[in-house]
């Protein structure tokens, strides 16, 4: 698989480490009343879709950036790659 890095261009997926669902960007509020349940669901439960999937990849053998890759889990086709920073900012998660 080739991941089209927003800054570096097309890179072999072997340079990256796959972390998991991009929903992990949305860390729950630790002060919420039901924080225990929220963190359980956040850490352990997954949608695990067959089809389009947004996931976190880390460019360990490259520029050490975190990416959000939109990929189809049935075909492995990648339709979108963005910096996780930009993805998180859009959700109001990052400064």
């Amino acid at each position: 698989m080739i991941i089209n890095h927003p800054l570096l261009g097309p890179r072999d997926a072997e340079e990256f480490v796959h972390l998991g669902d991009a929903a992990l960007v949305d860390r729950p509020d630790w002060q919420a009343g039901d924080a225990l349940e929220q963190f359980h669901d956040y850490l352990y439960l997954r949608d695990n879709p067959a089809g389009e999937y947004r996931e976190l990849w880390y460019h360990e053998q490259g520029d050490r950036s975190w990416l959000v890759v939109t990929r189809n889990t049935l075909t492995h086709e990648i339709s979108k790659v963005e910096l996780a920073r930009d993805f998180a900012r859009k959700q109001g998660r990052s400064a």
Partner: protein
Amino acid sequence: MRYSALRILQQGLTGNKGWKAAWRQPNIQKHYDVVIVGGGGHGLATAHYLSKVFGIRNVAVLEKGWLGSGNIGRNTTIVRSNYLLPENEPFYEFSMKLWEGLEQDLNYNAMMSQRGILNLCHNDAQRDAYVRRGNAMLMAGADAKLLDRDAVRDMCPFINFDNERFPITGGLWQPRAGTARHDAVAWGYARSADRHGVDIIQNCEVTGFQIDNGVCKGVETSRGPISAGKVAVCVAGSSSRVMATAGMRLPIESHVLQAFVSEGLKPTIPGVVTFGAGHLYISQSDKGGLVFGGDLDKYNSYAQRGNLPVIEHVAEDMMAMIPALGRARLLRMWGGVMDMSMDGSPFIDKTHIPGLYFNGGWCYGGFKATPASGYCYAHLLAKDEPHPTAKAYRLDRFMRGRAIDEKGAGAQPNLH
């Protein structure tokens, strides 16, 4: 029809005209006491033990494709019980004992071959870990033996002992482990379940569940609705997709694992050998092909096929462990979709929906677990309480802080 040597002789002398199909092609009934969703190894084993051991015979197994089209026909056929944790080892040893009597129980030749498994170690820390694991195995009634370098050399002289980076310092040996013909396991269970009255329905996809006032009353299928006293889901690889139709999110991700077979060779490898410095497990089939596998591709996938980097990685491990295999040619490779759970251990449990049961999350370990998984699931379905060896395989174990993490990798499914 009972299979025996006499039957082969008799059929051989009469032109082999008397063989019957191993199982029926029954019509779907409107109602079953238990509907098993998924006609893979575990589903068929569940049907066998449910009907034969627990006496529940009004049972259907629904399979989307054909029998054994999933991971039961895609694994590397290894059977072993060399686990560490007390939640796991008694279960896998129970499975090992069922394997040892499987062919007699099923009246079917599963080509069970107990030629042992050898886990190689390359340094003191690994050896210490094997001492601990071997003791845990012995305490659970399994067999284990720690081998030094010379004993490993006697057994497998072809290994590269003087690899500069990963010298062989010894190994953990389980003599009773081995391999079994994976397709025959599915067929044997199917035939036995059929003989005990179970309806095996192929090409019947479950599209949803009939949930009435919070109670599961049956399934919707591509061939119409079927009502059921209990619905037992057993669809590892597709667990998240199927359970999503009941509104459940699971502690599971689907990942692809590749496996390989070489051209047929003369007897080379005595049993199963695993490399301790990389992820490689290899054995030789009765037909002569080397059967081997390595790591996951490590990204979520439902594609049943992987990519080239893992093939390269596995080939490198093979060259590091047994350089002579560099001459062997790869015959086939394929991929299967694993239910990778959050701690690397499986689930056999009721769900929060009465009447709906779940079996899945088998990660790499589904094949060896087939008999015990079927037995324990049948026990749960028949008695509504878990089998003593499968008590820990609960869906709520993460909430209770009871993860069963053999590898200590944390909630990162692609690392288990």
